[in-house]
């Protein structure tokens, strides 16, 4: 195991974040806080409680998930796409590092960043809405799982993309709709029966449901099923990445 390489890449990626602190951390925290201001403090009081939780508090887990998930994808996809774009990837490809080490370091850095972001948002939410977390350990577990899984997913997008357009396409056209329709702002029990069934095909529903359960002990879907689905998606991403690296797909000419 080339630990020096893992450390070097991880450090490099984290220092890239420090350079772009405003864009990668401050701006998502700020924009998410606006939701808390609007829905928590301003109009939240006019909306009835859901499952016995005030609306302002109800949306907090969903919004944290939403930010963690989208930044995981964008962090990881950009991290590997950019060296491909500038050509500096030659160094990575010529170095004595295994694909596993490459993934661990890039995905590890991307997940770390979005984890920090998620926790920062949780902290800010605290200022606007009263919150209590029923199962902090589970809360963290789900957050880490989500950050890692979607960083893997983003990493794949970064390898697959051969232009900036493609890099943004998947997050914009698929992930954003899935997250908004994944129950960040409502309980899926509020949907008509038919749409409740359709919505179960959306993987994000499981993430948000389980994450919200760790706060309020109320879930749309059984927590065990959620956990299994999350792990399933994680394994799927790992298998796909394995294939990509085995074939050299879009990394080597």
């Amino acid at each position, binding site marked *: 195991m080339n630990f020096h390489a893992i450390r070097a890449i991880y450090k490099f990626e984290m220092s890239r974040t420090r350079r772009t602190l405003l864009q990668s951390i401050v701006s998502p925290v700020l924009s998410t806080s606006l939701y808390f201001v609007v829905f928590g403090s301003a109009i939240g009081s006019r909306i009835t409680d859901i499952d016995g939780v005030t609306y302002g508090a109800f949306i907090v887990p969903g919004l944290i998930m939403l930010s963690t998930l989208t930044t995981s994808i964008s962090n990881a996809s950009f991290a590997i796409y950019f060296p491909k774009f500038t050509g500096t990837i030659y160094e990575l490809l010529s*170095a*004595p590092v295994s694909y596993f080490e490459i993934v661990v370091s890039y995905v590890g850095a991307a997940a770390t960043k979005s984890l920090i972001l998620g926790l920062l948002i949780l902290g800010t939410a605290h200022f606007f809405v009263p919150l209590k977390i029923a199962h902090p350990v589970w809360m963290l577990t789900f957050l880490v799982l989500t950050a890692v899984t979607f960083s893997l997913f983003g990493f794949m997008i970064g390898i697959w993309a051969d232009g900036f357009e493609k890099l943004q396409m998947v997050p914009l056209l698929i992930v954003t709709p899935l997250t908004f329709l994944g129950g960040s702002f409502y309980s899926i029990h509020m949907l008509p029966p038919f749409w409740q069934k359709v919505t179960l095909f959306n993987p994000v529903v499981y993430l948000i449901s389980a994450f919200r359960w760790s706060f309020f002990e109320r879930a749309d879907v059984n927590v065990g099923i959620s956990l299994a689905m999350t792990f399933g998606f994680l394994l799927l991403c790992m298998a796909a990445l394995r294939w990509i690296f085995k074939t050299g797909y879009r990394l080597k000419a």
Partner: protein
Amino acid sequence: MLSVSNLSKVYASGFQALKRVNLEIRRGEIFALLGPNGAGKTTLIGIVCGVVTATEGRVVVDGHDNVRDYRAARAKIGLVPQELTTDAFESVWNAVSFSRGLFGKPPNPAHIETILKQLSLWDKKDNKIMTLSGGMKRRLLIAKALSHEPEILFLDEPTAGVDVELRRDMWELVRSLRDKGVTIILTTHYIEEAEEMADRIGVISRGEIILVEDKREIIRKLGRKQLTLHLQGKVDRLPESLAGYRLEIAPGGAELVYTYDSQSESGGIPALLRDLHEAGIEFKDLNTDQSSLEEIFVSLVREKR
């Protein structure tokens, strides 16, 4: 030290960039790979370094197969790419330290300091890469490649876009590396560079290695010498007695050009001069010319087409 056998590369576009290439590089030598644009030099280097996948064939680096045993193989190699591809926002120091870590070596600030000083980048160590000039970026890439103390160094056109003085410095550096036992493989379009630096030269054209030879041997074997005689008067045709020589009358008739192989040291010059004298052709001056590697190279590549 490096052994390439039966290496072929067909790009996804269907273009065959390498055709069953065989090449042996000896430990500690400077090997220059010469060839026109698009000959396949960068492709060959890319495959050895693991940046490009081979379609067929095998590369063994100091006993390690570069696919099955890629860790050991790659750890021995430093690569300076042809293109100036660098990060923009990193500092010089961080970029070089990063490379060292990437190749699995523990941090060693003293070593990096030595390299940066050697490449006259020490006063730029805290500068962002994007503030460097093209020649400095080239040196940075060399510093990155040397950061992990490789045993084999690939330099893909190291002196492209580098001024004369710096080129001299670079040659100096390459020689000092060789003296430390580093094997060096460089590609270049400047033939005087190969002539100046290399121990052995390989010529590649259209994906095929058409010649690998000791530098001196090439010049000796393929080099031609010419003797030009500036005549006192003019001649329009050669007398019968001189028909046995490879003599040509230069346009104008005031000069005779005699071509001979450099292998036969004297090339029969005394006999020629005697015969000339007997034929009544007198000359007032003479000079000889030896074809340079450049001329040899151009004629070789042209012959192949």
